[in-house]
């Protein structure tokens, strides 16, 4: 039976690089996938691109490619990544430079464009009125930074057919990066929905890298994981019939168990019978996980339904500012002094007429993550940190929040220390849908022969 071995090289843009090198060197893999876009990443990258047309791709692209391309060339491993972010073309230029500098022979790079739909959104009044149902686009029109559709496997498969060694995309859906080589290598039909669904299940398990090999899982005493400082990235061995094995390099840290796979299977899932991707709607409700060896879990039973007519579009827009200040109190009466400090700052906001949409006050150590959900007796704390944060319309108001916390040094309760303050603009994301046929991705090839 045909099979393909696919590894994850990154589960987010800032991910570690050594585990990618390790899995490429020791994993006997055919593909390595770097999934580096979160909901907001592309909007942030678009801002970089607006400042400099040669930027707007992943900040670690150069470091990752320098480290991984020579190994992949030597071991005949293909690279697929969405590290192109807002500027896959410039990312392609950068990779070309790297390939030249490394003096490698015969490398084919494919750049996939077409996920940026901002032009379509602005120019087509029909789309603006009928498709952008979730947001009144007129209200935020002048504040929009980016609009990108989640695109599927088709252009990646085309690039593979044309013999590409490195494929760089923008907002390709996370799962599509992994699914494309399965379809290409295993000869699946793009409308064989059950196989596509099975592939999406595997892709979903893989897309967050270390989160399926024991990362984001340890809870000492309850869930122990060895050697997290050397956590290994996952490998999926996928078979023609849709069955897959999830594993890792034996000497790498971490673990692949039923528990790690269950947690990752449900990560960011809503209705498990309808996990929507551009390539098909996966159904997880008959998925079976079996522990068949050390760090070896067998995945079967993924099913699917036809792909959706519309593609999801993420729109990034500027949404005001956030300002924040923090200060710490310690020893006897720490919490009482922190509460007095908060009261003073709130009164100051009234006196100076702070204009904020929303203010939040946290006592870090007591309620900064969520308010206590049960009435448990409150025991005295060795130290506490007050955090006051607010959302404002403009930068000037945002700055005032931190400034007022800072002035507690000489004007507030006794013993306050360690003030930090910051302000930032808010790049918000809203999502909408666009008819699939309006989004055309295209493959641009660059070949290097020495």
């Amino acid at each position, binding site marked *: 039976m045909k099979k393909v071995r696919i590894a994850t090289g990154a589960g987010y843009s800032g991910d570690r690089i050594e585990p990618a090198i390790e899995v490429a060197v020791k994993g006997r893999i055919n593909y390595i996938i770097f999934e580096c876009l979160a909901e907001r990443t592309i909007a942030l990258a678009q801002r970089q691109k607006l400042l400099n047309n040669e930027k707007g791709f992943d900040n670690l692209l150069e470091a990752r490619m320098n480290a991984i391309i020579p190994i992949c060339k030597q071991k005949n491993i293909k690279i697929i990544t969405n590290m192109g972010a807002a500027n896959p073309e410039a990312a392609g230029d950068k990779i070309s430079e790297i390939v030249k500098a490394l003096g490698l022979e015969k490398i084919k790079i494919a750049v996939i464009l077409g996920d940026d739909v901002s032009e379509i959104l602005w120019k087509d009044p029909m789309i603006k009125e009928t498709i952008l149902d979730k947001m009144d686009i007129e209200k935020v029109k002048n504040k929009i930074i980016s609009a990108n559709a989640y695109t599927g496997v088709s252009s990646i498969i085309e690039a593979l057919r044309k013999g590409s060694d490195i494929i760089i995309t923008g907002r390709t859906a996370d799962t599509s990066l992994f699914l494309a080589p399965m379809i290409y290598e295993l000869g699946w039909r793009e409308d064989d929905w059950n196989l596509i669904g099975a592939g999406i299940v595997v892709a979903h398990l893989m897309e967050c890298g270390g989160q399926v090999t024991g990362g984001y899982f340890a809870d000492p005493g309850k869930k122990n994981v060895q050697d997290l400082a050397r956590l290994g990235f996952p490998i999926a061995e996928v078979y023609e019939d849709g069955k897959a094995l999830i594993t890792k390099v034996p000497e790498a840290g971490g673990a692949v168990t039923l*528990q790690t796979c269950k947690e990752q299977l449900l990560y960011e899932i809503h209705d498990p019978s309808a996990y929507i991707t551009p390539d098909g709607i996966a159904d997880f409700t008959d998925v079976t996980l079996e522990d068949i060896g050390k760090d070896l879990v067998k995945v079967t039973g993924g099913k699917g339904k036809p792909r959706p007519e519309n593609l999801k579009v993420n729109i990034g827009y500027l949404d005001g500012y956030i300002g924040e200040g923090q200060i710490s109190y310690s020893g006897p009466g720490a919490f009482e002094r922190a509460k007095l400090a908060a009261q003073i700052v709130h009164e100051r906001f009234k006196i100076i007429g702070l204009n904020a949409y929303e203010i939040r006050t946290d006592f870090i150590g007591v309620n900064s993550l969520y308010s206590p959900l049960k009435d448990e007796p409150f025991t005295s704390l060795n130290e506490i940190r007050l955090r006051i944060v607010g959302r404002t319309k403009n930068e000037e108001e945002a700055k005032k929040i931190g400034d007022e916390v800072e002035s507690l040094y000489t004007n507030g309760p006794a013993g306050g220390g360690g003030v930090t303050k910051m302000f930032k603009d808010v790049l918000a994301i809203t999502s909408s849908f666009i008819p699939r046929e309006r989004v055309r991705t295209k493959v641009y090839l660059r070949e290097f022969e020495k």
Partner: protein
Amino acid sequence: MRKRIKLWKIAHSRAGDKGDISNLSLIPYDEKDFNLLKREITAERLKYYFRGIVKGRIERYELPNIHALNFVMYGALSGGVTRNLCLDAHGKTLSFALLNMDIDLDD
């Protein structure tokens, strides 16, 4: 006799976020406890437990195939990760807030 334990003793959880929606998995260490969790941890009970945090509805999905529950909580992130003023804007720590819940067991 009934005894009270923390959910944390018998189950694990991971939180995920999309927009203003948080989802929490709830997975028993021992598959035999799946029915207990199904009986005890209803969407209604969670809605009450998270009443100060989750503004919208909570839906529960059952996955008997992997012995797990999935809770989808709407309006859980104060407008979503980009504008949520919470230190944990993604709601990642809500998984352990769930595991801090008490449940009563028959002895």
